[in-house]
């Protein structure tokens, strides 16, 4: 395995993240702070505790997940698309990386940025008194898994896109609506029965529920179904992205 090569890919993305720190780290932290202030402090203080925790603690895992998804997707899609645009991808193509190593390198790079954002948002959450962590190992695994899923979606979009505008298509029309409708700001017990059932068909519901259950110990989803959805997406997307790299789709002539 080309371990030094993989570490270099992660290091490069970390440096690129810090090169545009306002866009990559400060903006998501400010957004998360605003969400916590409005939903937690302003509205949350008018709402009774839910599931045994203050509303701000119930909402916080969703806010964190939203930021992880955005950071991971943006990192993977912009990194790879920029490399295609400048032909910098040729540096990777001529280097001794297997297709699986390319997958690990690109996904790992995006997860690194998502983790950097996560740490800042956890610190912000601590300042608001919103953070609790009942199962740190499960929390880390859920965060890494969700980041990896959206990194791979970002890679697919970066390979498909023919312009910068197209990078936003999936985010605008699929990711953002499904995220907001996945119960990040509310419990599905607040919904009418039909809407609750529809929400259960939304994979984002299981992402948010997994992170929330690891933080506050409260779950509304079937954990087994959630794990099947998450592991299934991880494996399916990994196979798809590795196949695209092997075929050289849009990157190798």
């Amino acid at each position, binding site marked *: 395995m080309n371990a*030094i090569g993989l570490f270099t890919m992660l290091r490069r993305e970390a440096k690129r993240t810090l090169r545009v720190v306002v866009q990559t780290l400060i903006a998501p932290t400010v957004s998360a702070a605003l969400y916590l202030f409005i939903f937690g402090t302003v509205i949350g203080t008018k709402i009774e505790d839910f599931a045994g925790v203050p509303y701000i603690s119930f909402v916080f895992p969703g806010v964190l997940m939203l930021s992880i998804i955005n950071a991971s997707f943006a990192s993977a899609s912009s990194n790879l698309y920029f490399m295609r645009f*400048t032909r*910098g991808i040729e540096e990777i193509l001529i280097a001794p990386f297997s297709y699986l190593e390319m997958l690990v390198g690109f996904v790992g790079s995006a997860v690194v940025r998502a983790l950097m954002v996560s740490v800042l948002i956890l610190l912000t959450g601590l300042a608001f008194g919103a953070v609790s962590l009942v199962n740190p190992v499960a929390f880390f695994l859920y965060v890494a898994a969700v980041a990896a899923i959206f990194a791979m979606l970002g890679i697919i979009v970066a390979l498909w896109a023919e312009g910068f505008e197209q990078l936003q298509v999936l985010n605008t029309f699929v990711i953002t609506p499904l995220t907001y409708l996945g119960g990040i700001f509310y419990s599905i017990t607040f919904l009418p029965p039909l809407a609750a059932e529809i929400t259960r068909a939304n994979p984002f519901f299981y992402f948010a529920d997994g992170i929330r259950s690891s933080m506050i110990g409260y779950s509304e989803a079937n954990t087994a179904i959630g794990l099947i959805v998450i592991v299934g997406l991880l494996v399916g997307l990994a196979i798809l992205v590795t196949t695209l790299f092997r075929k050289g789709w849009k990157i190798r002539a």
Partner: protein
Amino acid sequence: MSSPMLEIKNLKKVYGTGKDAKVAVDDLSLTVERGAFFGLLGPNGAGKSTTIHCITGIAQPTEGQIFIDGVDVVKDYKTARRKVGLSPQEFNIDFFAKVDDLLDYMGGYYGIPRAERKTRIDELISRFSLEEHRDKKFQKLSGGLKRRAILARALVHTPDLLILDEPTAGVDVEQRHELWDYLRELNSRGKTIILTSHYLEEIQELCNEIAIINHGKIIKEGTKAEFMRDGKSVEQTYLEITRNDDKKA
């Protein structure tokens, strides 16, 4: 007996499919011996860059085989890629990264440990007189400095085979001669070099073996002496051969 540094057997590369299919390289075979300074000539679109891309992994051959130092570039691509360094015609680089970082990343991609990488980068920075530019972004460099940085990047993992695709495009005369001296020195130390250039005096100055590609095929291959027979320059021979080939086509 050791294998040649580069052996291409019946390479074919087709871009696109169906009606849009375009044959860029057609049944091309070529051997470059170890230690050669090999000039690859041809008009624009003849198939030079496509051949180079197939050797280095930027493009996938449609048919045929390529061996670098006896290693198949498709079947054992990871080993093969460690043996080649590429200085491409177009800058395939992150323009916002610093020169030092670009070399560091490339060395890292090739799996060179940190301490060894640092020593190697310092040597290359010094050899290409990039000391005062190492902390500058690539986009801020002049054309000549960019070429030097790209060449340094191609050498960071000390490849056995160095492929230079138009390495002196946009470089002034003085810097071109400095680069020539360095390439001669590298070749004299045993490095095999493949050079493509539109400056035919550069090929004549540096190369001892020459091949001409036209319409995706090798139409002439020989030593520099053979190309300069009867007091002709490489350029005169090149024009004669390509014009005759174009008439036949």
